[in-house]
């Protein structure tokens, strides 16, 4: 019995620390090779890059904890970004922001509606449904703008909120970081202090058992997809503000990065376990990795390769851990 606990705890210890260890080693190497790494400018850069991805990943955490997956966030980003930016002139920036968030919410609700009505309660079924929705959202964005990008800086009316989100700092902290922190706080409270958080975990652990035990599983699914949609919308606003352009294909590839960040952080893909705090660490690793590798002069193509390799490795390790726990 003792032995079991030790191997289990050693594996858990090694695995939990693997990620932090990874960040640490990477940061140290980069500091030595490239002195630009530890400059205020670069750290602020990291903080700003943190923006869009962490929003998505936080939303994706709830989805994966609930035993589902959402590939439509890339499409939601594209759609929300072009609609929000293009509406600034006609309805003003505050209303445009609200419309953007509402679109994200509607997209998320649409996903959950399809999943519940179709009974697509398996992760793979949800994967393909949300992939199809991603194609639809992207196509709507393309039709809406006629495939042309929308430029934030061409807006004739005031767009100061967007500038603030994209470039602003409150003291040493960027505005997008504050937005992230507020979102994290809200989601963390929901996750750890409310019955919704418990419902998500139980739904992810065993949906049938959860339903029979009186957990409102369908409401939970609606909730997690709504949160994912809203977080994707916030991510879209942050991203569009930072690059000052909204393109109808700008969300492409973000969904796999978000899944990667969540899984690397240590939220089990099978559902039932995880935390938004873990996702923050996972996202930090992904962003730091790309920042360090950029500074070290590694091409984006190889970074792409590494991303895939790390995703495979993270899932493999996670699986081995669960396997050893099962024994």
């Amino acid at each position: 019995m003792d032995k079991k606990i030790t191997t289990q705890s050693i594996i858990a210890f090694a695995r939990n620390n693997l990620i932090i260890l990874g960040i640490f080693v990477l940061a140290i190497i980069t500091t030595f090779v490239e002195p630009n790494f530890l400059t205020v400018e670069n750290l602020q850069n990291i903080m700003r890059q943190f923006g869009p991805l962490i929003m998505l990943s936080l939303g994706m955490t709830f989805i994966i904890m609930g035993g589902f997956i959402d590939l439509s966030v890339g499409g939601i980003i594209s759609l929300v970004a072009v609609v929000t930016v293009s509406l600034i002139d006609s309805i003003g920036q505050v209303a445009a922001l609200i419309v953007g968030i509402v679109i994200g919410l509607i997209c998320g609700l649409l996903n959950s509606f399809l999943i519940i009505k179709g009974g697509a309660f398996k992760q793979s079924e949800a994967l393909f449904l949300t992939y199809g929705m991603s194609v639809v959202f992207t196509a709507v964005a393309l039709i809406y703008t006629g495939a042309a990008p929308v430029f934030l800086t061409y807006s004739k009316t005031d767009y100061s909120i967007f500038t603030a989100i994209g470039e602003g700092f409150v003291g040493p902290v960027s505005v997008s970081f504050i937005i992230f922190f507020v979102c994290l706080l809200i989601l963390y409270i929901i996750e750890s202090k409310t019955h919704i958080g418990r419902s998500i975990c139980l739904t992810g652990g065993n949906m049938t058992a959860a339903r029979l035990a009186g957990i409102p599983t369908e409401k939970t699914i609606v909730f997690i997809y709504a949160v994912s949609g809203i977080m994707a919308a916030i991510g879209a606003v942050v991203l569009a503000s930072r690059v000052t352009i909204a393109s109808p294909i700008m969300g492409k590839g973000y969904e796999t990065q978000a899944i990667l960040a969540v899984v690397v952080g240590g939220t089990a893909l099978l559902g039932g376990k995880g935390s938004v705090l873990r996702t923050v660490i996972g996202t930090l690793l992904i962003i730091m990795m790309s920042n360090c590798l950029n500074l070290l002069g590694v091409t984006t193509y190889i970074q792409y390769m590494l991303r895939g390799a790390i995703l495979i490795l993270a899932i493999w390790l996670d699986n081995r851990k669960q396997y050893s726990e099962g024994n």
Partner: protein
Amino acid sequence: MNTKITEPIKNIFSAQKAPIAMLLIFITMLFFKTPFYTSYNLIDLVNSNSTLLIVAMGFTVVLVAGGVDLSVGGVMTVSGIIAIKLINSGVSIPVAVLVSILFGAAIGAINGYLTVYQNTEPFIITLGMGVLLTGVAQELTTARPISGENPAFQNLANYKLFGVVPALVLVMIVTVIVVVWLLRSTSFGRNCYAIGGDYEVAKYSGINVLSTKTLTFVISGMTAAIAGVMLSSWVNSGNSTYGDQTALYIASAVVVGGTSFAGGIGGAFKSLLGVMFIGVLSNAFNMLQIDSYIQQMLLGLFIVGIIWLDCYARKVKTETV
């Protein structure tokens, strides 16, 4: 367990979807004055869907055995690029093609090892493998299209038998026949259905589940590689973006055809119908000159609709039994 009983009923229901819908499109197109019913268009329709069909064959084998392989797009892209690069650097064509196919088999073996022997979730592992291979493709081509320098390589896909039938179509037909034969008439095929139907039962029946299931991934890798080589030969270029949407597109097409994600249900011929159906649909859209973004939206809605129906049919049957 109820799903197992309802599977045959659902199978009959969903097996009819693709041919009926395809027939509807053919009838609809009779009412429009388009070049749809020209021999050129119909041959092109088959020809342009051939690479996807080849990929779909291996994909079906994996699906039947209860797995899923989303790395096919990446394998297709990279093996095509490998073939072009090798041939450009002077390697003889048969050797280059062989190396590409072996590469596909190797990736399939890795997928198989990770998902079967290490018991991981196949769709996320192969999704990761797809991302990895896209990176490899970009690195090999520095994200620019590369073109073939040996004109003989083009003949591999573009040679026309009797001046009509392109070699690409012949390769596709051979692949389809081989996979149909594998699934229908060999013990390997029956084992695949058994494993997809119930993994544990298959295991206790004495089937070597591990090696059989791994082999399905190897087959999928090989067909994807063949498709990649043929695609590169057909357009005489290699590009890291070719396989971007392939895996999910094929997955939808195969489900439309009637092969279920649940495993143990479906067949190669059904997948052929599924892929051809989506091909015919987008061809008809083109003929009707529908805007390409609206096409994309309709295709997306369509994928959602079909998969939704697939899930819904299963849900309804489960509730009624």
